[in-house]
């Protein structure tokens, strides 16, 4: 995780805007990416046919009906509880779950995604606030850098999600239920990338700049708000992207041990109990779209903030 917390410099793609369209397409990533996606889909269909073959054949033979190869293949792509559902089945279930139910119905994927997302966002807010606070303390108090920072790093060695069931049981027994325990797990996961990124960012201004601030007899608060904080912004956004992704993982896993009634994690658990593979994949698709959307959103905000702070567009 440590490397993700450093800002990725935008790999200087050579100025392509001046080139003719065809050249731009040939040099860009879109064409290979599209090819890979097509290849993956074909592979997926082939996998679905192969993996579900025995299942469907057994079903045909049990009912003692004659079948052709075409019917067999069609059956593998249309099974009710396939080992590997075909992409169109997943998409159909996903669309059904998103559009065919009211957003507050427990059969709606929008509802479950929102339950998970709200816990993840609350956790993200708590984790980022704690992380920034710890980073500010660490760069200002030297003892903390030496004593606290090693423990924050070591805390990542604990498989944090192992704590998830206890957190939820413990908080449940003192009467805190629902959103907050899940959010706490997300928050715990978010703190680390934020602390590491922000310590790096807040200490990134070099000697010269700090000396200049000193020459202008800036107060510590001025040094912080006019030098350190702006310098840390790119690092903050890099950490935020990692934290956003990881907070959703935390919220999903936080829903498992309680056997929670709502949320994507609960959906996964129910699907695995009843062998509803299509439902599991549809839930995964939903949470993937949410995760990718929010990580992308953080990226967009980063770009607009960078532009406002005077970065070259």
């Amino acid at each position: 995780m440590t490397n993700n917390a450093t800002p990725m410099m935008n790999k200087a793609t050579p100025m392509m805007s001046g080139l003719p369209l065809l050249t731009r397409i040939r040099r860009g990533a879109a064409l290979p990416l599209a090819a890979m996606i097509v290849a993956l889909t074909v592979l997926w269909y082939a996998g679905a046919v192969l993996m579900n073959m025995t299942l469907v054949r057994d079903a045909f033979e049990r009912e003692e009906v004659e079948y052709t190869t075409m019917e067999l293949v069609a059956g593998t792509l249309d099974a009710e509880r396939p080992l590997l559902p075909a992409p169109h089945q997943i998409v159909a279930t996903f669309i059904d779950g998103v559009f065919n139910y009211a957003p507050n119905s427990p059969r709606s994927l929008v509802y479950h995604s929102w339950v998970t997302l709200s816990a993840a966002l609350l956790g993200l807010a708590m984790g980022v606030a704690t992380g920034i606070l710890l980073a500010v303390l660490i760069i200002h108090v030297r003892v903390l850098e030496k004593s606290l920072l090693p423990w924050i790093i070591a805390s990542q060695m604990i498989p944090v999600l192992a704590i998830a069931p206890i957190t939820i049981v413990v908080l449940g027994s003192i009467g805190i239920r629902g959103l907050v325990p899940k959010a706490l797990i997300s928050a715990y996961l978010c703190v680390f990338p934020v602390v590491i990124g922000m310590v790096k960012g807040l200490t990134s201004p070099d000697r010269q700049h700090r000396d200049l601030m000193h020459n202008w007899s800036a107060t510590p608060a001025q040094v912080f708000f006019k030098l350190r904080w702006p310098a840390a912004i790119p690092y903050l956004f890099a950490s935020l992207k990692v934290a956003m992704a990881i907070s959703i993982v935390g919220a999903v896993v936080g829903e498992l041990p309680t056997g929670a009634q709502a949320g994507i994690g609960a959906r996964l658990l129910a699907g695995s109990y009843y062998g509803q593979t299509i439902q599991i994949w549809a839930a995964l698709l939903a949470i993937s779209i949410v995760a990718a959307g929010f990580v992308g959103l953080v990226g967009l905000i980063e770009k607009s903030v960078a532009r406002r702070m005077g970065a070259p567009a």
Partner: protein
Amino acid sequence: MTRRSLISIALVALALIATAFLMRLSPMAEGLSRQTDPALLCLTAMALLLTAPWRPRFAAVPTFAASALLTGAALLLLRDADISGAAGAGFWALVGAALVCAGATMTALSDLALTDPRARKLRDIAIPAVFGLMLVMLAELVIRGAGVPSVLLPAPSSVAWRFVHALPMLFEDLVQTFVKGVVIGFVIGNAAGFGAALLVQDRPFFRRGLLPMAGFISSLPIVGIAPIMVMWFGFDWPSKAAVVAIITFFPMFTNAVAGLSGASRIDMDLMHSYAASPSQRLAKLHIPAALPFVFNALKINSTLAFIGAIVAEFFGTPVVGMGFRISIEAARMSMDVVWAEILLAALVGTASYGCLVLLERKLTFWHASQRV
């Protein structure tokens, strides 16, 4: 640390200890007058604190000793049934004094001007060690002093007791989850990731197509694949290894691709002028150049792998394994077992991370980040 700040810290600590003696109304004062040992320990600590400002350079020694003595006194007091679980202000004053002393120890250590690099290294281990010890002791005193129910949070001592007495069970869980699930999956996933990177490294079309895809997948909650793997590979360890392998594949792939294509123009020209064959170029230039990136991925993966295996156990498991034990014992409210498992996981996780760091130092000693 200046003499003046040492004097003020010592005065605060002394005042707190004095409070402990003087709190007539709290059960604590009863304890101090009934038991002579804690009282003696407190007096010794006071005497030690008075010597601290005398040699500010060595202040860490008396403050640490005082902190240890005060903690010992508080622990002795907890034997008293009147204090344990219903500690009064005097007891907390004593705990506060111990904390102040420990804080002074850490500050004194970090303010030491050391020139010898070995002494510095020792200091950089000593400070977090004191901090960790302080946290554990604080937890012990607060939990037992305030009588926190063990369902909420067991005292560190009872976790340690459970850890020692449940070693055979813990070992079985460790073999099931770590040796079978994590290690096997980790090896498969990383090897596959590195192999895939080797395959695409001189095929730009594949690289441009797969890299953004892998980057995208890395930001998704891949652990969600766990129930499907349990369905495909059964309840036993192969499904856990499969989850771990899938989770570790993507970070290794993206990092290895970056590393393998990271060799500089000059180095490649040098290889060219040596007339190196493609396999020589790979073995002598590209793979060594990729190692720092590979180790980066290995370190990221070492934390992800454990998570994957434990989460997969939530979806189905034989009656052994760390994730299984944690969820079953948490449901039975025996938190000392749960925390013993977490302690084990932390120890094993830290140990394997440490091994990776040592290996990295051995293999990439030439890299800028490894040179002092």
